[in-house]
């Protein structure tokens, strides 16, 4: 059998011209979607149809389509990055859906991520938190120590890597009822906390990042763990705990 099954779907999609106007759901029908297509390819087909009908296509964010750049977003049937676990929207495939299904598609919803258009939101708050301290203050001249002069236990390097795997997609924020960015910030703080480099400024780092996070309008963490469940990269709640420890230590030190 060479012909693959084509899905017929009803899509309820959030449309919003820009961040000043009010948005609403629109309903679209789409047919003959290959079960091998990705979710974003399904939206490409819908957009192609809309353009051919003389309508404006739906704006959504995406770039690598390999699950690594963190650009794609989308709340699908009430879940960040859709019904599968451990993946981003670009890695979600249509075989996860049934013929005849209705799919509801919304943008990330969080006060700190204003809508730009349709399904696209502004996540630059993350960049501002990073600029407040998400780095090691080393010059980029290359006149540094030989790399092997800083030995790092393999276990620590591996755990630092696990924390560093965060792709900055914002699913954690979008899925949290408080809109907290603790998983994202915790991951970065943990990466550096687990390595010998940059320890000298650890206290300043965590204080500055937490302050910036609060100023950006992210909510508090109330330990419900929804972020961990929806994180496509398996960033664990441990990182929030580690950040809290770093933060408390820094506060105590501040007096």
């Amino acid at each position, binding site marked *: 059998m060479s012909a693959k099954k084509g899905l017929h779907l009803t899509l309820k999609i959030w449309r919003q011209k820009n961040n000043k106007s009010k948005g609403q759901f629109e309903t679209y029908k789409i047919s003959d979607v290959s079960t091998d297509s990705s979710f*974003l390819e399904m939206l490409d087909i819908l957009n192609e149809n809309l*353009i051919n009908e003389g309508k404006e296509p739906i704006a959504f964010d995406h770039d690598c389509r390999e699950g690594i750049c963190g650009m794609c977003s989308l709340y699908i049937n009430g879940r960040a990055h859709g019904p599968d676990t451990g993946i981003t929207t670009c890695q979600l495939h249509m075989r996860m859906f049934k013929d005849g299904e209705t799919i509801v598609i919304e943008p990330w919803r969080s006060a700190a991520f204003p809508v730009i258009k349709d399904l696209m939101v502004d996540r630059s708050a993350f*960049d501002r938190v990073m600029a407040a301290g998400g780095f090691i203050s080393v010059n980029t001249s290359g006149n540094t120590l030989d790399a092997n002069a800083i030995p790092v236990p393999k276990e620590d390097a591996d755990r630092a890597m696990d924390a560093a795997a965060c792709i900055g997609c914002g699913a954690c924020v979008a899925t949290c009822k408080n809109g907290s960015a603790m998983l994202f910030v915790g991951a970065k703080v943990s990466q550096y906390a687990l390595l010998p480099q940059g320890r000298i400024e650890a206290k300043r780092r965590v204080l500055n990042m937490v302050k910036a996070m609060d100023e950006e309008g992210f909510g508090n963490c109330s330990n419900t763990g929804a972020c961990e469940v929806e994180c496509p990269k398996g960033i664990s709640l441990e990182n929030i705990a580690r950040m809290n420890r770093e933060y408390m230590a820094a506060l105590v030190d501040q007096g």
Partner: protein
Amino acid sequence: MSKLDSKIPAGPLKDKWKNHKDHMNLVAPNNRDKIDIIVVGTGLAGGSAAATLAEQGYNVKAFCYQDSPRRAHSIAAQGGINAAKNYQGDGDSTYRLFYDTIKGGDYRAREANVYRLAEVSANIIDQCVSQGVPFGRDYGGQLDNRSFGGVQVKRTFYAKGQTGQQLLLGAYSAMSRQIGKGRIKMYNRHEMMDLVIVDGKARGIIARNLVTGEIERHSAHAVVIASGGYGNVYFLSTNAMGSNVSAAWKIHKKGAYFANPCYVQIHPTCIPVHGTQQSKLTLMSESLRNSGRIWVPKKIEDAVAIREGKLRPENIKEEDRDYYLERRYPAFGNLVPRDVASRAAKERCDAGFGIENNDTKEGVFLDFSTEIIKKGKEAAIEKHIHNPTDQQIYDLGKKWVEEKYGNLFVMYEKITADDPYKTPMKIYPAVHYTMGGVWVDYNLQSTIPGCFVIGEANFSDHGANRLGASALMQGLADGYFVLPYTIADYLSADIRTGEIPTNSGAFDEAEKGIKEKIDFFLNNKGTHSVDYFHKKLGHIMWNKVGMGRTPEGLREAIKEIEEVRNDFWKNVKVPGEGEGMNTELEKAFRVADFLELGQLMAIDALHRNESCGGHFREDHSTPDGEAERDDVNYKYVGAWEYQGPDINTEVLHKEELIYENIEVKTRSYK
């Protein structure tokens, strides 16, 4: 008179860079804040350059089309980054890395550039480690290394399968530090639309704010282009969806020569195209070829039955399988270089043996069953299991494969819904990296004074073919350690110039050109979407300017691309408005540029009457189908000069490549 002066410093190869640095002009620290630099692109090349220039005290304005610098395409690189550290004590050295890179590039790269790249490679690792990049370590706490194709030492550093991500986040964090200090002004979701030249020098850009649609003027004393490669000219590739040639092409139209456009790297192990709805191809790491055997059915009726789903590959008997790489290249087998493996797969599929059961019929098997059994038997002996059952052997072997490649197998299953432990993976070559790009001299300056080009966007260092793990190295070398020196030499003449005004005629004119194009696109009310044209272009490129090229095919391609382009300018339809986010408008500008570049690629491929690296001309091959290079007539860089809208009139300039330190040899993998 040709403007191609490579400016390679005199003296012995190993002292060139040091001597050059010792004699270049400098900008004193107290003068650097009188100078503005624009950096277009925030991947490994642009990100590292922006951070370093800002740290040195220049005023940097950085641009990227994504919502954050952290999402540049560099983030996707998996395998690793090379550096001649010799930490493993296996005889690696600057010379050896230099030699491998020149040879891997089929002797079509500059000796002096490649030597410098090898020389600074070790610094890159030091720099990244000090920034907190979590490279893989061994149990002694020291850095671990892998080995990669075409190389006999272990020199590849890695951070799990996410090396590009971690290196980019390192550069992004260095940028973030400077953004926080106000030394870099970051323009996210901004696209460079044109270069502005004042009195013969690059002095600024026209950018479009992709959120508001506003057209902005930005001036500077120098402009650095770090906008990545142009693989998306093929529509389907492993590149990110937004990767484009526009910034590079715009400067080409303003006087920068475009070198070796026909050199494209095709990667042999990607997941095949599943059908006409596909938008993007996904890479499966090359490391899989260490354990997988590549085959197609020997009998054409078996291939047909597989495609129709009537036969499972597991049920094809050993003697009915054609392990074509092992057959053709007994010495290297499944580990031949990327270009050779790719062409061999295409040859089998063209002959009708492709196995993918969809509209494309392209694909070959990458089979782990032999390895599973081999490793299973080894493990059984180690565990003292006498007379193990087939199931025991399979389970032990599967465990070994899982430990080594588990994450890739999961990714494959998510995309294809096939379990690669049970049934062989399907793979097919895909466009991956572009070695061609803007011609630059040793200082990384294009033929436009004050316009520098770094990373994948320039043509340098990889020749006709790129080895694995060397693009990341080049991007960071350019950005952290080369450009910051060479640009100072240029800028030292500018400390008294003062701020460049943006109200000059040159800015007016460039802005007007862009606004007219926007009006055209929005009012054209044609019949077809931008993607319609892009797919048509991609189809021509893949079939006629792809893995195998013939003079007839290239001549047809040149004509057909021109027809698609003419049709595009008549019939393209771009909905929406110019004010505000309009993704179709963004695409229209990018595809317009691809339609011109594609033609130049075909012209370049037609003029180069030889086969080398990523450029394979079927009429320049040996009787058994191997590449035939022509060093007597084509040992040069081909750099094209724009002459106007008719791409056929572009003028070729040649930079002869001189090898003083290396013997030019034929590559053979038999």
